[in-house]
């Protein structure tokens, strides 16, 4: 890839819907997002309110889409780290390298009562544990080297067991022996996404996330958060260019071609209880995206439509079309994996003695 980091614009959209449990509506929205060449779709999940298992839904979507990244929320507070990493790796296998995982925690006592195993804990402790789950997941994805399967009839060996590794992870709340039951997934590590809005989550995002979601109502504000995250990532020993920072906006494109209200469109989004809201037309949204990206304060946007079908269609046919026309956004997918869309390299395996991943 010749374009230097920062020039690629990355766009993602949420496909959350209220009270939808059938596959059809999710398939339709994901295909719509794919027709616009978006990097990925997200589907939120929580035990705290009605909704299907998000990873299951996007796994159902995988075989009937081709290129778009699939990023379900999977919570890590009351679930088993070993199961979570296996499910995310499997999503990567069934989508042929398009899986991501939005890591989240369960903070309420109500959620704790559904499991009856532990009480609710403070957010900083939960995000500390979430970091450990993100770490052990990557170790388990690496616990199979890429060339562990040898099928050597002469010696009768299916695998080279020197390329399978116990991870022996000791966390503050759990331990995992390993190796994983699932061979290393196509992307090596499926993409880890963290909403870095809250302070407690920001550390975990800086250390482990490939994509951090932030909330900002202005380009300058976005730039400040992005700079902080990149500096923090560097302190954790990471190359900050391996972290993509996307601004999350709630999207309401119901008001016609142009922004009707002051404080929108050219003025930028408005703060609400659900995060910054952009209400206006698709053309002005394209202006906003182009302007902020031109300022180099963001790597892209994660957009949550208030009316999924209507707003996604306007986003793709209006905003995205305009950005494509101006040469700011891809018109086709040059790669096939989510990492390729995001311009992130396939990570080397920490256990591999020589060479490593391509």
């Amino acid at each position, binding site marked *: 890839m010749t374009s230097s980091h920062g020039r690629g614009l990355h766009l993602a959209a949420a496909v959350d819907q209220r009270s939808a449990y059938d596959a059809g509506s999710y398939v339709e929205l994901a295909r719509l997002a794919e027709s616009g060449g978006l990097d990925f779709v997200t589907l939120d999940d929580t*035990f705290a309110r009605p909704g299907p298992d998000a990873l299951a839904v996007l*796994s159902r979507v995988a075989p009937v889409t081709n290129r778009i990244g699939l990023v379900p929320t999977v919570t890590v507070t*009351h679930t088993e780290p070993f199961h979570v990493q296996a499910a995310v790796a499997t999503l990567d296998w069934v989508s042929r390298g398009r899986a991501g995982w939005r890591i989240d925690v369960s903070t309420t006592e109500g959620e704790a009562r559904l499991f009856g195993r532990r009480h609710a804990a403070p957010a900083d402790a939960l995000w500390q544990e979430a970091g450990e789950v993100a770490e052990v997941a990557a170790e388990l994805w690496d616990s199979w080297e890429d060339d562990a399967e040898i099928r050597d009839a002469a010696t009768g060996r299916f695998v080279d067991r020197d390329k399978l590794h116990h991870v022996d992870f000791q966390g503050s709340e759990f331990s995992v022996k390993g190796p994983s*039951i699932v061979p290393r997934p196509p992307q090596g590590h499926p993409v880890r996404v963290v909403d870095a809005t809250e302070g407690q989550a920001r550390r975990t995002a800086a250390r482990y996330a490939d994509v951090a979601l932030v909330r900002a109502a202005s380009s300058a504000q976005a730039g400040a958060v992005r700079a902080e995250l990149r500096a923090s990532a560097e302190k954790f020993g990471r190359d900050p260019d391996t972290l993509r920072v996307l601004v999350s906006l709630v999207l309401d494109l119901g008001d016609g071609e142009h922004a009707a209200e002051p404080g929108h469109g050219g003025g930028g989004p408005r703060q609400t209880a659900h995060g910054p809201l952009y209400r206006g037309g698709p053309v002005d949204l394209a202006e906003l995206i182009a302007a902020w990206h031109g300022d180099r304060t963001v790597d892209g946007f994660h957009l949550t439509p208030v009316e999924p079908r209507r707003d996604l269609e306007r986003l793709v046919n209006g905003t995205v079309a305009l950005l494509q026309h101006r040469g700011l956004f891809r018109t086709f997918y040059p790669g096939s994996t989510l990492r390729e869309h995001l311009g992130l390299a396939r990570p080397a395996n920490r256990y591999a003695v020589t060479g490593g991943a391509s």
Partner: protein
Amino acid sequence: MTVRPRTSRKEIHLAAHFPGVNSTTVWADPRSGSQIAFSSFEHLARTAERGLFDFFFLAEGLRLREHKGRIHDLDVVGRPESLTLLNALAAVTERIGLAATVNATFNEPYELARRLATLDHLSGGRAAWNVVTSSDAFTGENFRRGGYLDRADLPHSQLRSSGGTPITRAAEFVAVARELWDSWTPDGLSRPFAHRDQHFDIAGEFTVPRSPQGHPVVIQAGDSGEGREFAARSADVVFPCWGSGGYPPGRHSTRHGTLEDGRAFYADVKARLAKYGRSADDLKIMPGVTVVLGDTAAEAQERAAEIRRQQVSPQNAILAVEQIWGTDLSSYDPDGPFPDFDPEPDPSLTQGRTRRGDSVATAEKWRALSRQKGLSIRQTVIEASGRQSFIGTPEAVAAELETFVRQDAADGFILVPHLTPGGLDEFVDRVVPLLQERGAFRTEYRGATLRSHLGLTEPGGKG
């Protein structure tokens, strides 16, 4: 009173088991494909659907097996997480049921019930859950509840302190799952639940409305007394583990013996249903079986023998003997004689694999077989590993399958192919049409849900 002759109106139920992480699966064959690529699962599931099977079945393993302290490397290793894979398969199939084996020891009812209900929604009513429990701290090392042992084979002292047996927790787990599935009214109203017993103390609201089947189909594998009771009380399908080759326990030197043992098992399990207010049709008995076909009986026997040779490589033969003897026998020649000393009484050499029977008795049996027939280690292991369940021409196999079902030795079969992904192609192309001609198998799916394929009624929710 006239006694009506038994007709073949009792229909056979068929299911497909994805080739497992075990030595039944032959990976060295040139036709053997990936055990992890989605295309392999898609091929096998669509083949089974083409054959109008009731369901497609995935096994589970939560820790890679180890032998002599190292990861076992002779069999297929590595598999997907079952429920995630089945949701993807729901996109490329339309009617076939999708069954996941999921451990009740290392999961929690709320989350698992939610995942199963989600699969049922996304597949339009095709979800099934094969309930298993785990028996070792070895597997527990991968999980939060690793130290929590609550299983039947625990020493009694530990059993007392942990306060329960695995069947108890598994049965309670299933009961809680059913409560959660019933917690929404059929017209979409969520009602709070609260459940407190010896194992679980949970309360709140379930996040998923009642799914198309009401309750996903519940499968119980295994044939212990406790397992039979659990199946009679809680399961829709029982999948008896009939040992390698798919024989019921007991005599199986003759076809007649196999049939009689199957009938005894069938009668025993079905007789237990009445005390739970259930009828014989409410529980389907579907043993796992292997099938080998040939154009002639002799060719089928030849192919069956060749498959058994493939399944027991020289290295696998030594491994099998080491597992019985409980000691390192890597210096022994697989084409030579057995050790002349007796096995270790309590070997801990192999982890994550179910131990079968008394090792001293098995060792004596194998040595006797070797002496009588003049067989090497490998030849003996092949000989002792048991023949495939049904070997013959398509006509002969179809007739035998029908006989087993008509004579109440089974309601159907879970076919365990030895090749990924093409291991069922021949059965579907050659045997299924013959079963249909005999009127013993459906010619189309009549309903959309797995319950309808199995002829099970929808469970009544608490209104």
